């Protein structure tokens, strides 16, 4: 799937945990804070629910970037979901970069329910950096 | 049989000639593996090889191939079958065992009631130029299964390396037309004598490695023999023996669907995988190594004899060499024969 780069806009899949990050995005919305529309949000129960496959599948099926957000350490609704996830994320990100996937395709952050403004900033930043990377080609299927 | 001769250095010209007309596949080196691949010039070819790691079957029967794609145009469904507009294929420099394997594949894919159009689109018009084996490997047992280092079965032309020249044995009319067209000299008496010597020497260097006499009957009666359990206990159930086998042909059909597009794909499958026989109910009639490996051996040395009148192993030895746990089919057969 080759895309025209001229008026190309990145597609970014954002996995947000239900209890903090999704609520944070919600807050950004109800507070009418503007942020780029490049993200497609997928709500998951907890950042601990993220299977690395979700991330790879997104990249395989046309996402140009992936953003994963969960509650700040100590705030996870399930107490330790994000702590466990953090270890997986560290390894996955490192492995992908090592294998030659551009740094920045897959990003992680903590967003609380109160951080509507920060969420919007985060999305703007991520969108900008992925825009700079250009369309994802490497893991795309055909 | 007509015999022609060509100097080794003239092969270059001949090959480049053929490349003009055919899609030529030949042994090429990739890292330190030899595989069959499409060549763009004679320089890619590496004829100094014993045999390729992967068999040439994928040239006729690729590991993964789209059978059709479907989608919708407005309200109507659309189906598209890929058509190949390729020129006819020519396989250059394959080994006689692999050339024979095509005849076995034909029995499956070009069977009277089931003609496989995908296979046949590549098989029809395909030209096979094999090269005889002056140095068979210790793991080769073609002579035990009806072939030989200079067997011409399955080839249109067979090359015999006699030092500075190749003798070209002309096997089929198709092969004959090709040599006429490119124009090569007839082989003289002394060169033919040399060829006979080369062939004889190679043949003498091979000793029978399995006893095929009465093997089928033995296998049939040993089906429930507990020896199968101990023979196969070390098997890892990987796909090496089947995927690297020139005559294993099992496949699976899968559908891949994205948004509004669907694709039906044929992929290689292996009787060594538990998934091969797993049923929707969760039950698996071949649950362990024992049933799976026995199936492979029975299929080749008994069922194919029933169905096609011959064993479906060409004795290339790939599964012998590459098995990660050295489960040696020759040993399995010998053990059963001796029961």
């Amino acid at each position, binding site marked *: 799937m080759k895309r025209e780069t001229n008026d190309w806009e990145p597609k970014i899949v954002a996995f947000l945990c239900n209890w903090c990050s999704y609520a944070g995005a919600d807050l950004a919305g109800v507070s009418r804070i503007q942020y780029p529309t490049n993200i497609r949000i997928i709500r998951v129960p907890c950042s601990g629910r993220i299977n*690395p*496959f979700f991330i790879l*599948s997104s990249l395989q099926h046309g996402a140009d970037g992936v953003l994963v957000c969960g509650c700040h*350490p*100590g705030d996870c609704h399930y107490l*330790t979901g994000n*702590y*466990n996830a*953090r*270890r*997986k*994320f*560290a*390894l996955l*990100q490192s*492995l*992908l*970069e*090592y*294998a*030659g996937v*551009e*740094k920045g395709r897959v990003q*992680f*952050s*903590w967003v609380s329910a109160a951080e509507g403004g920060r969420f919007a900033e*985060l999305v703007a930043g991520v969108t900008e950096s992925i825009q700079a990377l250009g369309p994802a080609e*490497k*893991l795309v*299927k*055909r | 049989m007509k015999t022609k001769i060509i100097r080794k250095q003239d092969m270059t010209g001949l090959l480049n000639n053929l490349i003009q007309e055919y899609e030529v596949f030949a042994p090429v080196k990739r*890292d*330190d*593996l030899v595989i069959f691949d499409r060549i763009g010039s004679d320089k890619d070819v590496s004829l*100094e090889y*014993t045999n390729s*790691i*992967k068999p040439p079957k994928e040239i006729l029967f*690729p*590991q*993964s191939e789209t059978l059709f794609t479907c989608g919708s145009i407005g309200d109507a469904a659309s189906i598209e079958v890929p058509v190949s507009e390729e020129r006819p294929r020519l396989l250059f420099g394959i080994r006689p065992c692999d050339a024979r394997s095509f005849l076995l594949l034909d029995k499956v894919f070009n069977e009277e009631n089931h003609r496989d159009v995908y296979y046949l689109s590549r098989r029809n018009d395909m030209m096979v130029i094999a090269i005889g084996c002056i140095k068979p490997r*210790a793991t080769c047992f073609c002579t035990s299964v009806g072939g030989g280092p200079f067997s011409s079965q399955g080839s249109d032309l067979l090359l015999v390396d006699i030092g500075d020249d190749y003798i070209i044995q002309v096997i089929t009319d198709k092969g004959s037309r090709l040599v006429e067209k490119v124009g090569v000299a007839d082989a003289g008496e002394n060169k033919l004598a040399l060829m006979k010597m080369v062939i004889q020497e190679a043949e003498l260097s091979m000793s029978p490695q399995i006893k095929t006499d009465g093997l089928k009957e033995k296998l049939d009666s040993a089906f429930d023999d507990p020896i199968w359990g101990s023979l196969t*206990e*070390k098997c*890892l159930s*990987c*796909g090496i023996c089947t995927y*690297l086998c020139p005559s294993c042909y099992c496949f699976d059909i899968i559908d*891949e669907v994205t948004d509004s597009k669907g694709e039906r794909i044929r*992929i290689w499958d292996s009787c060594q*995988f538990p*998934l091969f026989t797993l049923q929707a109910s969760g039950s698996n009639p071949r649950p362990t190594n024992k049933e799976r490996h026995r199936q492979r051996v029975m299929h080749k040395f008994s069922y194919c004899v029933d169905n096609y009148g011959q064993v479906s192993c060409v004795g290339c030895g790939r599964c*012998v*060499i*590459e098995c*990660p*746990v*050295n489960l*040696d089919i020759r*040993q399995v057969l010998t053990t059963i024969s001796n029961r």
Partner: protein
Amino acid sequence: MSELSGQIREAVRKLLRQKEVDLVIGFEAGTLPLHSTPCFIREQQEAERLIWNSFCDNNLAKYLGKRQEKIAIIAKSCDARAIVELIKEKQISREQVVIVGVPCHGMIDRRRAEAELEGKEILEAEENDGELTLKGNGFTKVLKRSDYLCYGCEVCFHRNPVIYDILIGDGVAEKATDQYSDIAEFEAKSTEERWRYISDQVSKCIRCYACRNACPLCYCRECFVDNTHPQWTGKTTDISDTMIFHLMRAFHLAGRCVGCGACERACPMKVDIRKLNRKLVSDVKVLFDYEAGISLDRTAPLATFKPDDPEGFMLNP
């Protein structure tokens, strides 16, 4: 080496005689030069078949799972490390296995030895006193054994089994190695170079799954590649499907891979599987200070956490 074979047979006979175990998993002579092959022994008199040499390169821990019998296993150090992980992952109980540990000088990489011969066929191989003698039609070649070890053996610094019930022979000296210099070297390449190398390697893969099936830690009842509901990975030869298979297999072994190299040796296509696995082995060590297969007490790194685990990789954490 032959003394070791003798001692192994002795120990095994005793175990079977005293009915301490029902099954012994070890190695016997293979049908090809430079090959030994796994064997399963249940009777005392069969102990004669057991051998030990530099060709015992399969990881026998592979065969431990899903058995009821009491088992003795002839374990070099990487087999023993795999057993440690299997015990921790509750695939086998410590009581069910008698570990007959064999200190290891490293196994021969037969492909390295073959490469020395430029296509000439090896018909016979012998080893003694640190030398490997290869014979074929019209040639004899003597190689220095230690120059032809498997890569995993070259960088191994646990050559003595970390866990055992019976130890065969004397311990061997551990060697100090710079374990991860290969990883650092690879990391120094550009992103594009790394991608090119990995995809080039992965594109050779024929999805025979020998790597997975040879790996002692790949024991999932249903591997993700076989899962059809959902279908995590495509089954075509599209490079993206194969790449995801390899990335995910490596990832599933994070903190579990004991670096035995069985995967790589099984691969008929010589895919450089180690490139990915070892990266994770080294990351797990650096980030979580954990080494697989060394201790029965430490929790697997992905089954635990520390509140202050590194998170510098995250966006303004």
